[in-house]
């Protein structure tokens, strides 16, 4: 069933505002998603009616707050296909989730000469934590290259994985849009005896997620990319793996007992959640995934695929060789992030001109500088589509680009 985009759009209060007197054309959902009223209301209601600290109170309000917080966890766990809510650790975002793995699992399992395999299309969040371990412990990083059609080149995958301890890769590139075959990559890692971390930060917002079917050890994501609030994200981990890991930050909540002589740790997931957590945000994230499931992730994926196909066609028809798209040329096997170089106009100039028409696109390296170097470009412009975008938004992008072309007249 096709989505009723107008009805969806109406649920996002921010989309009703104008910029420079024009209808807002928000094409930057890959950076952060806008929030539906259901999420705003859930968080507002929590603060108005339920707010108390969690896990340490006996009074009614504290019990309700704890229940709301843990319900947010359970709902989010169900959304990503986790078998057990206790396999979901709340973090601030995907970046913290990956750093948590590097600092705890990495500390216990990676030493000098141990190999971590990444891909050339990773976000800095899935690069720098490993480079920090390389600097501190002398681990080796290997890179799976991309090919001419902006997909992973798997020719030498088995060689790259040979002897590796971890394969950490993105399910969907935030620059190219490319989706990777997670089960196949995870299976290759298993054959080599490597653990698997999936950066699902982009993919969770655009297609159904079933971590149980991925055969991964860890999956990282951010709430704010999936119509939830900022300040909360998740690390899903296989229970026995999480249990074997040392704790992350130390403090309240993560302990079972503390004496002058030392401490013992709490059960998972709380072992990794030191300090007062983002409670209202957990409630908001629960509301966000409830809302996404209400719309239907399969329907969202189908709508975005159709719109991506339309956008790729419209850009090529209008600008031909004047535009270079860095990513798969059709909607097949890709998400809705469309990165491009337009004429010889710098991405910042394009973004500036588009802003006049209230068209919001991102310009820059998209926190993927190694990929930018592989592509041989300093920066790209990126338009990314979400469930509330329609062909009018794409047409507005094309018209604004034509204006930029006329303006710079190169």
């Amino acid at each position, binding site marked *: 069933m096709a989505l009723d985009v107008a009805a969806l759009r109406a649920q996002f209060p921010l989309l009703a505002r104008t910029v420079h007197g024009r209808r807002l054309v928000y094409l930057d959902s890959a950076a952060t998603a806008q929030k539906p009223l259901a999420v705003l209301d859930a968080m507002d209601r929590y603060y108005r009616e339920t707010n108390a600290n969690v896990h340490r109170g006996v009074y009614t309000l504290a019990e309700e707050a704890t229940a709301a917080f843990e319900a947010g966890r359970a709902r989010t766990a169900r959304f990503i296909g986790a078998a057990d809510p206790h396999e979901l650790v709340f973090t601030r975002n995907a970046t913290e989730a990956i750093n948590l793995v590097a600092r705890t699992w990495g500390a216990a399992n990676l030493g000098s000469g141990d190999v971590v395999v990444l891909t050339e299309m990773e976000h800095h969040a899935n690069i720098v934590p490993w480079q920090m371990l390389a600097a501190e412990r002398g681990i080796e990083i290997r890179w799976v290259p991309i090919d001419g059609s902006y997909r992973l080149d798997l020719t030498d995958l088995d060689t790259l994985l040979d002897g590796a301890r971890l394969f950490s890769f993105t399910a969907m590139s935030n620059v190219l849009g490319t989706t990777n075959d997670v089960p196949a990559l995870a299976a290759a890692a298993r054959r080599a005896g490597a653990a698997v971390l999936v950066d699902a930060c982009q993919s969770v917002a655009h297609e159904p997620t079933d971590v149980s079917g991925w055969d991964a050890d860890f999956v990282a994501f951010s709430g704010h990319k999936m119509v939830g609030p900022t300040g909360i994200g998740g690390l899903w981990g296989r229970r026995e793996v999480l249990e074997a890991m040392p704790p992350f930050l130390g403090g309240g909540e993560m302990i079972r007992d503390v004496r002058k002589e030392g401490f013992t740790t709490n059960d998972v997931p709380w072992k990794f959640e030191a300090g007062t957590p983002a409670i209202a945000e957990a409630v908001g994230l629960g509301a966000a995934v409830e809302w996404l499931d209400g719309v239907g992730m399969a329907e969202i994926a189908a709508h975005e695929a159709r719109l991506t196909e339309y956008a790729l066609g419209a850009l090529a028809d209008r600008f031909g060789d004047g535009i270079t798209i860095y990513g798969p040329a059709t909607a097949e096997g890709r998400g809705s992030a469309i990165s491009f170089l337009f004429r010889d106009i*710098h*991405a*910042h100039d394009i973004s*500036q*001109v588009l802003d006049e028409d209230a068209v919001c696109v991102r310009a*820059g*390296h998209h926190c993927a500088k190694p990929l930018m170097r592989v592509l041989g470009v*300093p920066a790209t412009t990126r338009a990314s589509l979400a469930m509330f975008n329609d062909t009018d938004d794409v047409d507005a992008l094309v018209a604004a680009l034509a204006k930029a072309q006329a*303006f710079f*007249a190169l």
Partner: protein
Amino acid sequence: MPGLEDLYREIILDHYRAPRNRGELPAPPATRVEGFNPLCGDEVVLYLEVGPDGTVTDVRTAGQGCSISQASTSMMSAAIKGRSVDEARRLIRAFKALMSIHESKLEGGDATAATEEALEGVRLGDLEALQGVVKFPVRIKCATLAWNTLAQGLDEATGA
């Protein structure tokens, strides 16, 4: 609301489309410096030739980036060529003062004493076209990159 024409004045677009003093100089004897704006990937490379009398006898520029960074580089190179190092340094101070004037001051309000002092007696000429950049705060770094790089280059060339 500041419009695009505030930012992209015709003279700026002209320097962007047809940058002056593009190229390289053998270094040494010339001084080569690089400036980089990690946020947007703007890159400026300057080649400076300073004569024994302290005159900037030649300047060449390379690099890549947005129209503002590249136009500012081009305009800067035209402005300092043939000037003394001292004059070039005064121009740097004046240009940076121009970039630090708050938007509200552009319409005739008071600039700070330090800003006035830096601007006093300095003829900015075409460079004043870059003043509109102030209304677009994220782009100020694009405009100042060439000038910060020049400051570094002059220090290196004069052993300061």
